[in-house]
């Protein structure tokens, strides 16, 4: 009897707890709005919920590109500037969270990893795609640039010829396939390597004893290594030596008189941003335009869950979400939608 009484109390209290849960859920769903997806039964999305921020960790090049792109470069290497409660996850974990478990999250991935299970946000009302990146209408991106030493300033003529052949290879169909494979958006190529290789006789000889030094941006390291790996067998198996230390060293180590002839000097430098005016000249002499150029774009897309009604953002909205000390912070989805409507 006593036992049964106890059981009864237990069930009663359980029922109370469940009922309490029920009220919380139903009261909050009153403020829900339907998602803008085309499914007939639109799942509810509670706009009063907090935004859950996802970010890559400080060693990631994508993070560098994203934070730079939204005007928050200081946070590229500093977790302490981000809004409390953010989550550090890798590419896959961010995509998985947005595609299923976390309706209220926002994250970012490089364009090449964007898939149909998540919603890629428009940036300044432009949909991220290879076309919009190449025609320069999509803004959340950064250029991958290269720079060579001056003519006649290479360790040997062979190195100079290989470096120039390498630059030509980067904008062939084969070169761009490699760049795309490494996750960047390649420029549009029309020629095959076979069409132009006759212009580079250096590639027909055995170059196994020749070392070409590559350096500059560490964000481009993966792309650069992929391209040299693909180019090596096409050009006499020269030795590619990679040391990537940052975009600033692209110019310094190839053309800056104070650095270019030291032990850290490079033959080809990469920068994951546009070269500054100061970097386009040595002293007062402008560099010839054949000495630097672009090889690809690195485009980044902010992503949310498909049930999320948000469609369009700009750098300011994203920065207000991610910045801890923002003067005009966005912390809930309702605030984000208000900011979107004001665009």
């Amino acid at each position: 009897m006593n036992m049964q009484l106890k059981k009864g109390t237990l069930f009663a209290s359980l029922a109370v707890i469940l009922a309490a849960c029920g009220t919380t859920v139903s009261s909050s769903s009153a403020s829900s709005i339907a998602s803008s997806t085309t499914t007939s039964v639109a799942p509810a999305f509670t706009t009063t919920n907090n935004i859950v921020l996802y970010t890559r960790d400080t060693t990631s090049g994508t993070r560098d590109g994203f934070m730079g792109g939204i005007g928050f470069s200081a946070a590229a290497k500093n977790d302490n500037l981000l809004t409390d409660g953010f989550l550090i996850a890798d590419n896959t974990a961010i995509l998985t969270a947005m595609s299923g478990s976390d309706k209220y999250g926002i994250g970012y991935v490089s364009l090449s990893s964007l898939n149909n299970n998540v919603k890629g946000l428009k940036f300044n009302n432009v949909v991220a795609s290879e076309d919009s990146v190449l025609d320069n209408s999509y803004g959340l991106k950064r250029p991958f640039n290269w720079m060579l030493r001056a003519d006649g300033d290479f360790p040997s003529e062979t190195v100079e010829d290989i470096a120039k052949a390498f630059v030509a290879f980067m904008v062939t169909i084969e070169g761009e396939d490699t760049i795309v494979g490494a996750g960047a958006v390649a420029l549009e190529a029309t020629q095959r390597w076979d069409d132009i290789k006759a212009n580079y006789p250096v590639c027909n000889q055995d170059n196994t004893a020749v070392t070409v030094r590559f350096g500059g941006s560490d964000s481009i390291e993966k792309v650069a290594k992929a391209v040299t790996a693909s180019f090596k067998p096409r050009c006499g198996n020269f030795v590619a030596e990679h040391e990537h230390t940052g975009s600033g060293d692209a110019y310094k180590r190839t053309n800056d008189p104070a650095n270019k002839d030291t032990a850290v000097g490079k033959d080809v430098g990469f920068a994951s941003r546009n070269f500054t005016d100061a970097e386009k000249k040595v002293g007062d002499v402008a560099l010839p335009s054949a000495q630097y150029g672009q090889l690809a774009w690195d485009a980044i897309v902010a992503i949310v869950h498909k049930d999320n009604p948000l469609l369009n953002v700009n750098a300011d909205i994203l920065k207000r979400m991610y910045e801890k000390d923002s003067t005009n912070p966005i912390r809930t989805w309702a605030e984000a939608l208000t900011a979107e409507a004001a665009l």
Partner: protein
Amino acid sequence: MKNNQAKKWIDQLVEKILFLMALLSASFIVIVVLVIIERGLSPFISDNDGLGQVNLLRFLTGIVYLDGPTFLSNAYGIGYLIISTLYIALLSLLIAMPVSIFSALFIAKIAPKFLGNTLRTITEILAAIPSIVYGLFGAGVILDLVYNLSLLVGVQSSAGFSVLSTVIVLAIMIIPTMTVIAEVAIRAVQNELIQGSLALGATPTQTNFKVVLASAKSGIFTAAILGVGRALGEATAVSLVAGSRRSGISFALFETTATLTSTMLQGMKETVGLDYTIRFSIGLVLMVIILLVNFILNFVKSKVGRVHV
């Protein structure tokens, strides 16, 4: 006579070879520990290529992992990680302990022979599964469950990355290890004790709990020590479900968290300089913590492990 000489010579040779092998395996441990100590201490005594020494007190008590930009700052703090690590290990032990003791008791003493053998084999296989597999299970299944649970109770968790997910994954992972060891201890309880208890009129349940478990206490404690060791040292599975918290201690079950090991693993492959070396310092702290925890548990074991039946 000559034959005897040869035999002696062989004996001595075998002895020397065995000694060499023992020396080799022991020296590996010494070398590993020395390397970790050497690298782990360097952030506190060198100026880290111009960044300045890392402040040891701040390092051990800080509640922000890195106060400043990576590669340009020496302001590391892992105090909150030490507490989270211990908290998570303790919680997973609380879940794993009863489950593994009771399953060990069932397998060793109650289950029919065939069922017992089958369950034992299954547990042994489970104990041998690498932690990454448990981590993947956690990332694929537990995260979803915890996220839905958090919505049900009206809290918004970050995609399930939380203290709770980490504790569940670790508990699932250490239950088989603990069960296997506890089962051996329980099986080793002398039959005379059990028969004696039953003959005195105790029921099988009373005997199991008051005699069998009491006699196996010491072995069960060993199981707990190994379980805690595995939970403290686990990196891969934890980093898949914890959410890599960068500051602040999190005791709430649905908040994100991080442990010493998951922080060591984060970005390890892509970093250089002090940000790389500091991971050895975290490793050093982890070694000290594991030693301390083992010492304390062994002390407790020697106090409560004595059998008074």
